[in-house]
């Protein structure tokens, strides 16, 4: 069972220190700031360069800070063990201010500077527009930052990813769990609420007839009694949740971003609805720190994750240690994915004894990689095969309920 990280009361102090550090960084010129990894003294040949952008300021600054921490820790670890091919690894992270246009300028810069490995930024919103930029330069895009089946399909194996499920399969785990329930508890009517956002729209409707909650519901013989899109700024869901309840929905699938997902969970609890299954199936909402501050509203709610600590995949211990250092209650999905994509670079380099893009691309598409999110061979489009972990929050503790081999508890239905 995943251990909760402690130190909630230190968060305030930590955030103040973090804020002070950021102010210091900004005064030093954050827009041009780069992070040089610590290197040991005995390297041979020119350094191997890895670069990417992150939204160190702006809307995505929190997850981006986690990515940066993971990236730097990985580089330090690798360099402490002699680097890659005996060469020092140098990491450059530029601040894209959480905007795709700034990121595009930075990626052009990486390409002109002939960086060896290009990392994707966080979120589809910032990362999606960079896919053609990197592809046009004939570089492989190492994507531990965002999901999007359409981008993998369009890039035809020139983008390799470490998120083990894409937007179209975000609710797949929830439907699998529902299907595994005894017939008397298996929901026959479901309500779907999804945010007006390209990622969550794909999570509901799928892409090119593939995936999506609506498809899974139809496949599993469930009647969709509510299929409603909501604006991301919606502030009151009371009427909507009451309508879902009145329509006889036995399961609620929410495909949203954190703020509204939290509000929906709160509303369900407030009006006292207890569906058989309630899934916050968007954005790995239940892995974020704020989830626990919702208290009773989280009880019985399921969510998904790319991996679970008990699976003990390589690198998990290091990522978990980083999360502990930041007093995060659980390891966010993006930290696993961020570490895993760097492991794929390492294994590609070691496997080919080279930094040549075409060789590494071919190697990665034909070999099994062993990462913090699992051991797998990439699909032809560069994405990992579908794989997710379903967790349920019960009395403030997350328990794995699927897949069976790592499940620590049976799913509790209906909501307690």
């Amino acid at each position, binding site marked *: 069972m995943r251990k909760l990280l402690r130190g*909630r*009361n230190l*968060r*305030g102090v930590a*955030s*103040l220190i*973090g*804020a002070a550090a*950021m*102010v210091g960084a900004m005064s030093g010129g954050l827009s041009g700031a780069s992070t040089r990894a610590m290197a040991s003294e005995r390297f041979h040949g020119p350094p191997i360069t890895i670069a990417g952008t992150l939204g160190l*300021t*702006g*809307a*995505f*600054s*929190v997850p981006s800070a986690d990515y940066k921490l993971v990236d730097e820790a990985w580089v330090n670890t690798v360099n402490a063990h002699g680097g890659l091919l005996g060469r020092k690894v140098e990491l450059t992270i530029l601040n894209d201010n959480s905007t795709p246009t700034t990121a595009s300028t930075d990626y052009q810069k990486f390409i002109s500077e002939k960086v060896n490995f290009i990392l994707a930024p966080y979120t589809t919103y910032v990362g999606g527009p960079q896919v053609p930029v990197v592809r046009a330069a004939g570089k492989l895009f190492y994507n531990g930052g965002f999901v999007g089946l359409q981008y993998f399909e369009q890039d035809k194996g020139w983008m390799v990813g470490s998120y083990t499920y894409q937007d179209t399969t975000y609710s797949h785990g929830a439907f699998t769990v529902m299907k595994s329930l005894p017939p008397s508890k298996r929901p026959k009517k479901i309500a779907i609420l999804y945010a*007006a956002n390209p990622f969550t729209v794909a999570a509901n409707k799928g892409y090119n007839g593939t995936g999506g909650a609506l498809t899974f519901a139809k496949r599993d013989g469930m009647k969709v009694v509510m299929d*409603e*899109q*909501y*604006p991301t*700024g*919606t*502030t*009151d*869901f*009371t*009427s*909507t949740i*009451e*309508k879902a309840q009145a329509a006889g929905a036995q399961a609620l699938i929410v495909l949203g971003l*954190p*703020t*509204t997902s*939290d*509000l929906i969970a*709160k509303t369900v*609890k*407030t*009006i*006292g609805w207890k569906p058989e299954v309630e899934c916050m199936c968007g954005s790995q909402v239940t892995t*974020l*720190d*704020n989830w626990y*501050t*919702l*208290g*009773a*509203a989280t009880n019985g709610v399921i969510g998904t994750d790319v991996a679970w600590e008990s699976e003990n995949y390589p690198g998990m211990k290091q990522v978990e240690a980083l999360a502990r250092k930041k007093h995060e209650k659980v390891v966010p999905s993006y930290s696993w994915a961020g570490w895993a994509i760097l492991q794929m670079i390492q294994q590609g380099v070691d496997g080919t004894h080279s930094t040549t893009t075409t060789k590494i691309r071919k190697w990665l598409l034909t070999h099994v990689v062993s990462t913090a999110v699992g051991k797998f061979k990439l699909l032809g489009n560069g994405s990992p095969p579908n794989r997710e972990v379903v967790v349920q929050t019960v009395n403030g503790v997350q328990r794995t309920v699927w897949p069976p081999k790592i499940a620590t508890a049976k799913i509790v239905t209906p909501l307690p």
Partner: protein
Amino acid sequence: MTTAFQIIVSGILLGLIYTLIGAGLAIVLGVLRIVNLAQGILIMISSFLAWDLLVHWGIDPILSVLIIIPIFFVAASAGEVVMLRAPARESPDRAMLLLFGVLMAAEALASIGWTTDTRSIDVGYAYTSFKVGGAVIPEDYLVMAAVAVVLLGLTELLLYRTLLGKAMRAVGQSRQSAEILGINSAWVATAVFGLGVALAGAAGAALGVLFPFNIELQSQWLAYSFIVVLIGGLGGLRGSLVGGLALGLGQELFSQFLSLGVASVVLYGILAVALMVRGGGLGAAKVRRI
């Protein structure tokens, strides 16, 4: 029947809280002719403070309101004297531009200090409800609506039953005439700005209990403030009450009978229509001053 009752109950409770959002903007605009573009971010900062007070000191948001109001009043009054007074003397538009700068700076600083993470305030009454006549009444809506009623009532008393309130209304009607009558309009302006921001602070603490929040929500609250003022005009708190209740009831009504996406379009459509009907936008609302 139950549905109608539910819409009315939820709409009124939400409307009272929305009134609090708009009242601060209406008072500052009505008396000083300044559109406080920083209203939304001030509301957000108050939500974050309420969260901090609860998480680090265990202070319930109801009590936080009592702490936040004087803090916001003093900080805003000081800000008015130091930053706003000179540009406001030149023209309200210059003051509005300065407040836009305050908005941008405050948003950036708040992002650094509190990060862009979502937060929620977990208090006992946040997840419970009871039924009256078949309508579900969330306790947090009820508690915060009651807080809003008390604060709006006290503000009404201040404006209509005190000398300071009379002075505020006099300055709102004619600054020059008020000065001729011996009213120190500069200090009244300071008090008005402090009062408007203090109400925004109270609204932030209340909203933080009702809705999970992050910095990005500030634009939503700013838009809601505008809707309240545009519908209710600047006819004192009673006008804001009309605007707030119209917003709350409209939101509930549209959410019940339309999809959430369409309901949102209708809601912002009201804002657009109100702007068109009023011609000069928020400025035209000045016709009905406090």
